[in-house]
Structure formats: C-alpha cells, structure tokens
C-alpha cells in the first residue's frame, strides 16, 4: 500500500482516553422540519438512502479560518458541514464544533477518520466527538481510500460498531482517486451509505456512469474539489488568472457540478462571506452558456500541459516511457520553478527511460484523452533533465 502520512498520523491525533466525555446515543435530528425556509434560494436534494434532505451546496470547512462564516452559513439555511480529524491537525474540528453548537440538531455534520484499523478508527471517532462537542456525527467517512483493498472488513466493522453505539448515523467513504475501484467496492460492501468523491469540470463526465450506479444502489453522493483545486494555485498576472478571476468563474465550476442530478450535495471550501454568497446563489442558478465558455477557456489553456493522471496513457508509449511521471516532472520545472526537484526525480528513472528520446520515433503512439501535447512535453523533459 502506498505510504500515507495521513494514515500514519491517525494514532497521533487521538487524545488520551481519560479525557473523553461520557457518550450517549442521540436521537435522529428532524432535518426537514428544523431548517428555516428561504423560498427561492435554498435547494434541497436527498442524500441517497440516508433520507437526509441536504442543501445542494454544503460547506467544506477544511480551510475556513473564522467561525463566523460557518455560523452565517448555518443561519442562512446551509445544512451540510464537513470536516475531518486531520484538518489543521485537529484544530478544524474544534472550530467547526464551536461554530455549529447552537444548531447541531438542524444540520448534517460529517467528519472522517484517517485510521487503517478498527481500534484506531474508533479511538479517532471518540476524539472527533469530543472536539466537535457532540455525541454523534451524521456521517463518518473512512478518509481518502484509493483502492478497493483499503475498504477493509476491519474498518467497515468499526463503522457498524459506531452505528450501533449511536456515535454515527451513517457510514461513508471519501476518495480523491481510484473511483473505478472504490465506488464499485463500496456498493458491493452493502455497508456504505454515502460517498464523498472528487468531481469537477476537469474530470469531465468520465465517472458519471459510476456515480449513477452508486446512486441507483442507494448511496448518497457528496462532491468535493468542485472548484478543481488548482484555482487557488493560479499565479496572479498570468492569462489563466485573468480568466479565473473574472466574476462568476468559480461559481461556474460549482454550477457545472450541480447540473448533475446524481450529486446530492457539494462541499466547496469557503473562507469569507463573499465566497459564501456566491456559492449560495449557485443553488438556484442554472449552468449557462457563459459558464461553459469560461470553463472551456480554462480547460483549453491547461489541457496542452496539465496531466490529470487518469493513466489512460499507461502502456501506450512504444518506448515504454512512464508518460504521466515524465509530465509531472516537467511540470515541477516549468510550472512551479522546481527545476532541481524535476531533475532529481527524472534521474531516479531506469537508464533505458533516461536514454530514450522522443525524436527517435517518427510519430507518437500516445494519445492523451485530455489533450495534453504528450510528445512535446516529454521532449521538453528530455531537453531539461537528460
């Protein structure tokens, strides 16, 4: 299994058991009845077989620094809030819990465990409950699973134990990659109620069939990374920044996700009220031709260079080059000014890869489905590092 610090840290994020409060099972909150009405603005969708009615725009609290933004969102009727044990080394759960304390029964609260084993997972859950100041969470995700083998019986059992103890209402799995493996495995387990998946306009419709199958199986689907993550890394003064800094560009990305009816809710990150208000409006706005134009312009700009690591190129180079790795290394140098790192990684490749040259082929057999100019970019890597 791939090395993961997040998993390793699971134990380190557990507070001493002696400090835990006595926990009691909670009654299910009546979500529908408790949410204040906001005609024409709030849009609800059903979170699969959980039956929870959640606002189509939720709140990803991971990078929020000020609790007042979370409080305002809850007051405005947003009712899905997401955090995790590892965010800000545990500080995030504490802030989220404090911000939502007065509305705990009216909102759907989710957190995640980074643990790999039952005992660790249950211990992190107790810590989460203590830090959140609640005796239950609505959805408890196994955090960042990227292969079917990571959905172990041990972890699934931990979720069932927590359910029986009334510490969680529903079991979930979150994943950033490995959709084609993890989603079917989650469906097949019969024990997962909700999936939290990365889904945005850069991934396109590639996983829509999987999402539809999960929905048909009764799973609720929560979308994260809806702004495609990279927006925050766009450098000021570049043409890309000009496009993405246009009013409404970020909202266009959110509306793209919301146009898929199989998505139950979304959890964009928000750090201020302006962002919240923009996202709030997306609930009742339709994805427009102008949105399409904005996102297409962004994709056109990044497509020739940006590898989305879909691995569809795997094994298609006639010289056997590891295409996605090479594209990543050249991005270190050209995209992030990390020439040394790119070259360091390049030189760790086998000799036959280092000595291969794209110029030796009369044509390139690698066709990137996302439009990356593969031969051009790999030739660039060879020019820079070889």
């Amino acid at each position: 299994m791939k090395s993961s610090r997040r998993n390793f840290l699971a134990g380190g994020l557990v507070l001493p058991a002696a400090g835990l409060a006595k926990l009691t099972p909670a009654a299910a909150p009546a979500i529908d009845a408790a949410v204040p009405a906001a005609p024409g603005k709030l849009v609800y969708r059903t979170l699969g077989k959980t039956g929870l009615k959640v606002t189509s725009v939720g709140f990803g609290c991971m990078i929020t620094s000020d609790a007042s933004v979370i409080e305002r969102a809850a007051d405005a009727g947003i009712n899905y809030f997401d955090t995790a044990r590892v965010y800000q080394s545990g500080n995030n759960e504490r802030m989220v819990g404090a911000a939502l304390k007065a509305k705990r029964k009216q909102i759907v609260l989710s957190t995640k465990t980074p643990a790999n084993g039952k005992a660790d997972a249950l211990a992190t859950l107790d810590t989460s409950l203590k830090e959140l100041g609640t005796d239950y969470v609505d959805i408890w995700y196994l955090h960042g699973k990227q292969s079917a083998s990571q959905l172990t019986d041990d972890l699934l059992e931990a979720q069932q134990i927590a359910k029986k103890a009334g510490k969680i209402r529903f079991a979930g799995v979150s994943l950033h990659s490995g959709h084609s493996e993890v989603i079917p495995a989650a469906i097949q387990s019969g024990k997962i109620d909700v999936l939290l998946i990365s889904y945005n306009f850069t991934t396109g419709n590639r996983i829509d069939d999987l999402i539809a199958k999960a929905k048909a199986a009764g799973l609720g689907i929560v979308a994260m990374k809806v702004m495609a993550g990279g927006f925050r890394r766009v450098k000021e003064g570049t043409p890309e920044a000009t496009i993405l800094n246009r009013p409404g560009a970020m909202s266009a990305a959110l509306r793209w996700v919301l146009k898929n009816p199989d998505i139950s809710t979304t959890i964009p990150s928000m750090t201020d009220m302006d962002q919240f208000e923009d996202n709030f409006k997306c609930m009742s706005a339709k994805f427009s031709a102008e949105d399409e134009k904005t996102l297409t312009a962004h994709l056109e700009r990044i497509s020739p260079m940006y590898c989305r690591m879909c691995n569809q190129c795997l094994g298609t180079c006639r010289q056997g080059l590891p295409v996605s790795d090479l594209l990543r290394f050249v991005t270190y140098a050209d995209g992030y000014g990390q020439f040394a790192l790119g070259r360091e990684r390049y030189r760790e490749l086998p000799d036959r890869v280092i000595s291969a040259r794209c110029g030796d082929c009369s044509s390139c057999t690698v066709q990137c489905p996302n439009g990356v100019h593969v031969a051009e970019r790999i030739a660039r890597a060879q020019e820079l590092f070889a």
Partner: protein
Amino acid sequence: VIRLLALSAAAVAVAFAQAPDCSVLPGSTQDGPLRSYTADNLFEYMDGNAEGYILYHFVAMHGVNCQSGEDTVVLDVSEMENPEWAYGMFASNRDPRSPVEKIGTEAQIVPRRAILVKDKYFVEASSSKEQAAVLRHILEAMAQRISGTTEPPGELSVFPTAKLVAGSVRMVPESVLGISALKRGYIAEYDYGKAFLVREATPESAAAVMNKLRARFDETKPAKVADEAFEANEKYLGRLCIFRKGRTIGGFTGLTADADPIAVTATLAERVK
C-alpha cells in the same frame, strides 16, 4: 547552459541542506525512499489536506521514514514561500492547549507528534509510539541543520500580553474575520474579545479597505483612535472597534459588555509601529 546548470546545482545544494534523513534519529534506518512533493502533487501524499498547506504558500516538501526497532518515525520538512508563511503554518497546526518551546523559531511536542518552524521551513515528526524525548531530539537536530531566522513575525509583539489567551495568536492566510477585504493578517484571543491586525501595502490602500469595512456594517460610529477608527455592532462579530494607523488596520471584535471598545483598541493601536 552553464549558468542554468550552476543555478540548478545551487538549488539542489540548498534543497538537500534542509532535507531530512535518518541521521537525526540515531540507530534508525531509512524505511523506503526519500519523498519529495510540490504544490502540484502534494495531494498524492495527503489528499485534500494538501489544500491546508497550499493555503500557506507551500513550495515543496521533502520527507523520509525512519525505522528503529518496532517504531517508525515519519519526518517531513515543508518549505514555504517565506518565514512568515511558515510561521502561519505552524500556528495553524499547533494545539493551542499545549505549550510551545523555543526550538528554532518555535516548536511544540506532544507524545506522538512534534512540529517546528524555523525560517521558511515547517518540520513535522510523528512517531508510531509515544516518545516525546526522541521527537524533541529530532526537532533539535533539524533546527541545527536549518539555517536562517529564528525570529517570529514582528506582528506578534504588537498584541498586548495582558489577558491574552495562551496559544491563541495565529496567522490567518486569507479573509481575516471572514471578510475578503482583510486579505491576511493575525488574530489573538483575549478574555474580553478577539484582536486582529492586517497590514496593507500603503496607507492609501489601507484607507480604501477602511471605507469598504464601513460600508459593510449597517451603522458605524466614528471613534478617535489612531488615524481613523469606527465602532459598530454586528450579529456575528459582536461589538467591535476598528482603527487604521498608517498602513495597518486592526481592532477588536466580540467585545464583552464590560470591555471599553475605545480603550482596548487604543492600547492595541499604540503598539503599532
């Protein structure tokens, strides 16, 4: 080409000087290869949590796992854009309920995890078992290895220490108080309210931000503090008083009923150089 090679060699030398290895944990052996990440692929290592690093202007990370008997220590060194961002990262990740120590700029050690900031580097060491002494030794070794400043950001000394909640001072990387006009700054919790400081590029741009803030609150009352100031009362931020002194904007929010908004804000403003 020669110049490029010379520059890259220098970059490699700098990168390796700060990179961790298992010599900081005597008796241990390296478990697996060294790892390196940039903002482009940090998520491969820590999934969505990577955003929490990128927010603090993350540049690169070098890490290694060290095995000592049954115990594994995971050691990662993150390079941020400058010392201020590195400090911000540290403050965001420390446990406000646990003490900090003077190793490097600052460090915090809990039984299975230790973090350190020095210059523009943020160091994290985690152990599979509780061993604070070992983690402290690792941080001390890393602090010696990393060159550069050990001074925390100057803004920290502006906050008065009386009635300051221990461990509450931190950097906010964007949207201080949840207001986008306050791009980034520092906050500190007091028994009687929350203080904040934001430095703009010029007094003129700070004055423009003040105008935006006035427009944001329904009713404001002018106050005589520093160059300009106002009081207001808002549902979420509570009783507040905000001042501008040169290019610095600061003030208090969430003031308790017994706190004098003008007096506490004036005290803060006086400390701004």
